[in-house]
């Protein structure tokens, strides 16, 4: 369609000179009890955002019970020695605060945000949760039932089923293979397990507190000393985990969901963590491949072929291991066609040098998105916690763009060849077996599972 076009500026405007990026000062301190503190002033709104991390999560708890750190986190807000569940929730509301507790593989965390006027009372409440959780039995019955329904529900979500299967393939006996408990495992949780985990993990020597917001750092630092100063506790001992397997050859894992009207594809292979010197190289390579709207995979299977709405690739950096993954929910008829394009784009990136102009576009993209963290308190908090939890250099934020800009096409070629392991990529497809099995089997030896993880064939 062409409309009558009045006078317009026809040429694409050039970019103006870049404004300097200035990351705010991070004021770091360590309390006598071992608690690490980072304070960052950011005045975008009269609020603050904070997160109290403990450097132990579900992986460190795997020897006790699957996802026990997460279950413990959800119990912590249900009561303390001084406050009932209802009192905690009403205090939060009265302070205008949000708070959530969760554990991932590598950390347990209390995240919170509130009005600048109320920082000190919110810190008091966070302190109470971190030190005095009482694990009331009636609350446990309720939380466990909710968890039970949650784990039933997630087994009906194609994205969850695909992710769970891929983790099992890539990590096997390593705790990272365990993403969620079974119903039986939820039923077996005990309060004693949680109390003991809480005692071991929720200690100042194991903790990192980051506060970002519209406040005066000196005043908040003294609040933190007053509130958390008398806390004590050692760092927990950590167990050695078995090494993950290195799957050889492509295999296909079909998770059968009868009646599914779409197929969820997820392919993956081992890669690297954020600490690895090649991290920025693989991040750039991923961005070119499928990490941005403008990437090759999205342009191919969405904008050109219309197979899918939301194809994406990612590098998933857990603390000990990282892995690369590609996902796309596609219509049943084009499973084979989609996998063909996924591998075509991988192999192309592993064989042919990326044109300089395309590389520059991707560098600009990553550089711009990286700096967007500056614009919000939660964005800053996320960038800073990534640096500290992964023990990256202090000047990581300041030097990232420079390191990114220094990369050349050969770096992408070598990163793709090293880390996007086409020949040994593991392929998961979640969908209705009748509809997709023949197509999936074209890409490797096929194993079929049901939604509960039982092998069907």
């Amino acid at each position, binding site marked *: *369609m*062409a*409309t009558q*076009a*009045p006078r*317009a*500026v026809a040429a*694409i405007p*050039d*970019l*103006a*000179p870049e*404004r300097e*990026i200035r990351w705010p000062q991070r004021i770091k301190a360590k309390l006598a009890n071992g608690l690490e503190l980072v304070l960052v002033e*950011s005045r*975008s709104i*009269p*609020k603050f955002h904070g997160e109290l991390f403990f450097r132990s999560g579900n992986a460190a708890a795997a020897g006790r019970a699957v996802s026990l750190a997460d279950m413990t986190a959800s119990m912590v*807000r249900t009561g303390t020695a001084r406050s009932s569940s*209802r009192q905690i*929730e*009403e205090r939060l*509301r*009265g302070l*205008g*605060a*949000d708070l959530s507790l969760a554990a991932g593989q590598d950390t347990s965390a209390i995240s919170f*945000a509130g*009005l600048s006027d109320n920082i000190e009372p919110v810190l008091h409440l966070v302190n109470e949760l971190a030190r005095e959780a009482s694990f009331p039995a009636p609350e446990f019955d*309720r939380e466990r*039932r*909710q968890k039970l*329904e949650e784990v039933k*529900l997630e087994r*009906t979500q*194609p994205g969850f089923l695909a992710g769970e299967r891929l983790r099992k393939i890539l990590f096997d006996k390593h705790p990272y293979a365990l993403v969620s408990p079974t119903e039986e495992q939820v039923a077996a949780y005990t309060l004693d397990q949680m109390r003991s985990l809480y005692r071991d993990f929720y200690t100042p020597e194991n903790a990192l507190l980051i506060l970002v917001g519209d406040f005066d750092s000196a005043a908040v630092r003294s609040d933190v000393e007053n509130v958390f100063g008398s806390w004590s506790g050692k760092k927990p001992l950590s167990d050695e985990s078995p090494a993950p397997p290195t799957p050889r050859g492509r295999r296909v894992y079909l998770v059968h969901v009868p*009646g*599914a*009207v*779409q197929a969820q594809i997820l392919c993956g292979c081992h890669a690297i963590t954020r600490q690895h010197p090649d991290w920025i190289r693989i991040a750039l390579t991923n961005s070119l491949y499928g990490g941005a*709207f*403008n990437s090759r995979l999205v342009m191919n299977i969405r*904008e050109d072929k*219309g197979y899918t*709405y*939301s194809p994406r690739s990612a590098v998933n950096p857990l603390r000990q291991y990282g892995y690369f993954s590609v996902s796309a929910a596609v*219509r049943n008829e084009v499973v084979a066609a989609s996998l063909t394009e996924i591998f075509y784009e991988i192999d192309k990136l592993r064989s042919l040098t990326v044109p300089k102009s395309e590389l*520059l*576009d*991707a560098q*600009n*993209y990553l550089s*711009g998105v990286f*700096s*967007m963290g*500056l*614009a*919000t*308190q939660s*964005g800053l908090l996320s960038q800073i916690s990534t640096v500290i939890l992964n023990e990256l250099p202090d000047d990581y934020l300041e030097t990232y763009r420079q390191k990114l800009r220094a990369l050349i096409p050969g770096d992408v070629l070598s990163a793709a060849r090293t880390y996007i392991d086409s020949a040994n990529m593991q392929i998961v497809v979640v969908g209705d077996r009748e509809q997709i099995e023949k197509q999936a089997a074209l890409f490797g030896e096929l194993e079929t599972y049901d939604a509960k993880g039982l092998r069907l064939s």
Partner: protein
Amino acid sequence: MKPLQIPVEHKTLLNGLHVVIAPDSTAPVVTVGVYYKIGFRREPQGRSGFAHLFEHMMFQGSENAAKMQHIKLINSSGGVLNGSTMYDVTNYYEAVPSNALERVLWLEADRMRALKVDDENLRNQRDVVKEEVRVNVMNQPYGGFPWLDMPPVAFRNWANAHNFYGDFADLDAASLTDVQTFFRTYYVPNNAVLLILGDVNVADGFALAEKHFAHIPAGPSPKFADPSEPRQTEERRGDVVEKFGTLPAMAIGYVMPQRRTPDWYAMGLLDQFLHGGRAGRIYRELVLEKQLAVEADGGIDDIFGYNGPTQMTTRILHKPELTSEETLAAFDAIIADVHGTGITDAELQQVKVKWRSDYFGTLEGGRGGYMPKYGLMHLLACFTLFDGEPQLVNSILDSFLAVSKQQVQDFARTYLRPENRAIVFRKPVAATQEAA
């Protein structure tokens, strides 16, 4: 308590395009939005889902930026972009390093002036939209619940009652002529607002807006379908089958007052009182205390963004050992208690603090953290298009904080009545088969 003083400047170009600028040099990032006053509510009859399909078409090429160019130019400038179709508006937005501001304005102007798409683009995006519906609705437990389930039960006017994502037959029937007509009718500068927020100098921003948008000709004022509903006099109910999940669910929606009427402010606080997280009355009683439900949440979908019949909706997933009627009775007991005893001074005080805190949070972020100032953009756009008053962003909070407890109780008594509500029961197919 610090008063809110967001600098906001507003001009209207000769072609009717509103331009709103909110400068803030905290970070070298600028957020640009273009809002058109057309959403899925008033899309053409027989073309359900068209407003959203059309939104996809706006990324398919314009006269000077061919398909893929648009996305490429934003990403390669270091920015992110997206669009979304809502009840009463459709938005297009970008967050970019501020050195790319003019490029973004050029792109937005180019597609407002001269969208250029063909049949192949339409076929491609029709396929993409169908996969979007499958991934979000048809292949997910509780997909579309209740936002797609509720309208046909609650409303009688097609505008409010149809399938907003679109029946596949209607998507298939959509033609390039429909695209042209829709573009010419609604995507005119006099039906839109351009927003520039963040690292921009006000004078430069207006000059750039003038340079790129002023020559786009105004169109006739769009004629909008009338969304008014016949008066509801009875409770309405409907059933929907749940294909994947195992818990019975229900959604209870009460029709709300029009935006910025006196009742609207009391509504905002009552919503916070009922649905404000774990302290909210409904979650507290149904999930935490009586333990009948596993999930109970909801509220008003977009309090600042609606401009037609809208509900406050509670969404409940309850234990299968309870019947729907037992669960509904527990919900009704909460409503009856609010009618009878209202809200205490202490509760109202808490609710207001939380409301203020949430409002500030909305202004800063509000779109998954990746779009700085999305919330501020959305509020400024809706206050401009619906109220003609972008400065409301600084003053509207005071009106919410002035609501009395009597007003909250009166509101509950007036609006939370059975003859003002609709209920959708989402019934798991597994349970239905067992019973049969």
